[in-house]
């Protein structure tokens, strides 16, 4: 069952992705595009973990994210695997690409990135978002 909390997370993920896609086409803001795209995946993983959390415990689990996984995509993936949720191979690949490149340290980065790198990163972000969105239907 998807409560308002989970649905709100999914809407937030969509909004971050829309912003990332807007910046994708702006040469000067490709790092920012990746930065926001990574948050899309972080929110998607948290939403999926919450789906596997009993309804009454979801708000507490949201609080635990701040203490346990925080913004660590690698840990979030492990937490999702521990729920028993099957991750399709294509999504697994997408997660691997995103978690290798993305970290909150990106906020300190400056300069330009290759368009191809941003395009492939956001392809992976969309794969994860589409999987999560499909699972919520």
């Amino acid at each position, binding site marked *: 069952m998807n409560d308002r909390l989970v649905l709100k997370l999914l809407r937030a993920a969509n909004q971050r992705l829309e912003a990332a896609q807007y910046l994708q086409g702006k040469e000067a803001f490709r790092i920012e595009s990746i930065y926001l795209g990574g948050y899309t995946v972080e929110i998607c993983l948290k939403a999926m973990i919450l789906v596997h959390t009993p309804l009454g415990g979801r708000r507490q689990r949201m609080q635990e994210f701040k203490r346990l996984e925080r913004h660590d995509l*690698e840990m979030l993936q492990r937490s999702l695997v521990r729920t028993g949720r099957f991750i399709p191979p294509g999504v697994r690949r997408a997660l*691997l690409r995103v978690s290798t490149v993305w970290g909150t340290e990106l906020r300190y980065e400056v300069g330009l990135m290759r368009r191809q790198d941003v395009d492939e990163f956001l392809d992976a972000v969309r794969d994860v978002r589409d999987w999560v969105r499909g699972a919520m239907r």
Partner: protein
Amino acid sequence: MKTISERDRKTNQRTEHIEEVLRARFPNVKAYFRPSNSVIRVRVVDAAFAGKTTAERENMVFPLLDKMPRDILDDLTFLLLVTPEEQKGAKALLDAEFEDPSRSSL
């Protein structure tokens, strides 16, 4: 005395298995397990990646990875595919993250 990052880079049978499988095609492979968040990280350095996009590089490596048991793939969360030149230049930050893990929230 080992540093924190050294203590957070262990090898075990599973990381050795990954290295063994990937070395069939890529001689320069390093894999380790991070006890702090129970994940496996892998780095492959190969000149054959030159001129290829991330997705193209993944397509070279995944046929080998796909042979591995699911429990190993479940733990794999970091896969760095770089050329020797990128290791020192364009991808140096990611290489530094591999060598000196910093992202554990613990």
